[in-house]
């Protein structure tokens, strides 16, 4: 049976009201009645443009625009992060940039059928954590090339390879992964 919608979607917007009902005469009785008035709700817009700096992590994004996947490594211990990290969390030492492998395996994943407002138009989309040989941490990414309606635990362990957006957006999604 088809799962047909039975309710019309609600939106926040509404008509501008030019006259709110209010007692025409104010006295003890009508003032007391105001306690039973339903609340007035108005719409407030809140919009901001931030100038966000990637700071010491900036080379990671520069790398993606050049189809290079960079990570960070503690020079003494060799502990390697798949995400940029200026200092190692165990030694406190400054890390060095290293080139990460372009191939890895799916460590965990999900198919998002719902999401935050910004990503609703992209539903369903697949989030995945990727593991890499010789790298101690994981990388959060989008997984493409598998059917969202055929999610399976068998995807975990699947070999995947990096693909890069031709037109960089300077976001971590400039790299994504597909089955190798």
């Amino acid at each position, binding site marked *: 049976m088809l799962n047909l919608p039975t309710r019309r979607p609600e939106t926040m917007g509404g008509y501008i009201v030019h006259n709110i009902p209010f007692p025409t005469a104010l006295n003890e009785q009508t003032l007391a009645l105001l306690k039973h008035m339903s609340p007035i709700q108005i719409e407030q817009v809140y919009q901001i443009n931030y100038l966000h700096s990637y700071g010491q992590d900036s080379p990671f994004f520069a790398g993606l625009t050049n189809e290079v996947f960079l990570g960070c490594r503690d020079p003494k211990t060799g502990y390697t992060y798949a995400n940029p990290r200026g200092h190692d*969390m165990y030694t406190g030492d400054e890390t060095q940039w290293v080139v990460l492998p372009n191939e890895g395996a799916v460590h965990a994943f999900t198919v998002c059928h*719902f999401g935050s407002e910004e990503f609703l138009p992209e539903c369903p989309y697949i*989030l995945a954590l990727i593991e890499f040989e010789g790298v101690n941490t994981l990388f959060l*990414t989008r997984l493409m090339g598998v059917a969202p309606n055929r999610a399976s635990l068998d995807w975990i362990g699947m070999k995947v390879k990096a693909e890069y957006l031709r037109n960089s957006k300077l976001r971590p999604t400039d790299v994504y992964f597909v089955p190798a």
Partner: protein
Amino acid sequence: MPPVVYAVSGGVSKFAKARPDKTFQAIVKEAYDYAIRDIGLTFEQFTELVDGSVASYFSDHFQRQLMSGIMAQDYLGLCPKPGHRVEGGGATGGLCFQEAWKSVASGHMDICVAYGFETMSHVETWKGNEFIALASDVSFDYPVGGFYSGYYAMMVTRHMKEFGTTVEQMAHVSVKNHLNAYHNPYAQKRNRYSIQDIRNAPMVAWPLTRLDICVMSDGAAATILCSEDGLRKLERAGATISRPLVRVTGIGRGTDAMRMADRPHVDYDYFMRHYATGHEQSSEDTRTYYRGLWDNGFRYPGVHSFRAGRAAGNMAYKHAGLTDPLTELDFIELHDAYTSSEIQTYEDLGLCRYGEGGPFAASGKAFMPGIDYGLNLPEKPICPVNPSGGLIACGHPVGATGLMQAVFAIWQLQGTIGKHFGDAALQVKNAKRGAIHSHAGTGTYVTVSVLERE
């Protein structure tokens, strides 16, 4: 001598999808006034005695208002007494409770009130999800598709792969918590569901359905904590403090990396040395079991476990003198934002071993006795988890949630659930000791507090 801190009273507003009838300050006052009334004091008497407060709310975005805490402080008539706001994602309420405990335990205050709130209905659900997802790294996590249900779903696919956990086991948690809440008038969702109902609900983030996930809410909660001197002051003023008294006997907290991708994958020896519970360390059988897990490629905590939760539990248990939480705790109110995270938390809190959370969920050990869940549960209840209905059924007005758990724990230990709920079905018989667990982000801040009846 460890400091004596009593939790003497609490109040909760009815959690609801939306409370446009009142501003957030007035919703806080509902919970605050209830806590005062319950010890038989007037507003003026309590205002005279209370030394200060701690305020709890998560997001400035939901209200589009900075410094909401002082607006609540002002509305409650607490100015110019000391107060401050705490914030730590989903664990904000648990942190607030512990900050109030510290205020009393340190001797800085004799009577401290902890209040918390969130009004999440001011934006659409998808915008609310966006606000919440801003509690993930905005450079590397959020832009990939920031959505907390997605993050938790990734954890559970790993848990399922690693340990064989099933969606039906997760659904047991949802059935339990929704039906518990049927007897809790403060809860937002009070329903009887079957396992099939949970699985047939709309898919949100595979394999989590809408009924595996808590909802957004408007609500508030408040608790009153005091020292021995504070107790005497309250009683001299005419307060009727319920006996037996309830004390906070254990406090624990843990943290983890904001990006769950950055979490370590430690070996067996490191785990046993730094994370295993005393009970796990002393059991040959458990050591053998864990060696087997590691031999099969298991690493800790990875993304399937919360070492912050384990650290918080271990710290709180040590403080309270517990070694086997499953048998020494009479109930736990834990942060079940997802059915899967309740299962993960069973393991973190040492109710079962890592990897056994799924079978534990379906065993019956965490269910309430005397309630017919319509399930075939092989074992009897030992330690009811979320007897109130938890976040999944009560709702999750973030800043209020951890304090709601504290209030329900106080009432359980006072034996007054019947009085406050108008229904004694959820009263854990002869409850002597319980724990509350509050959890943020993808396991970034976690608090565990142990409360005991004298």
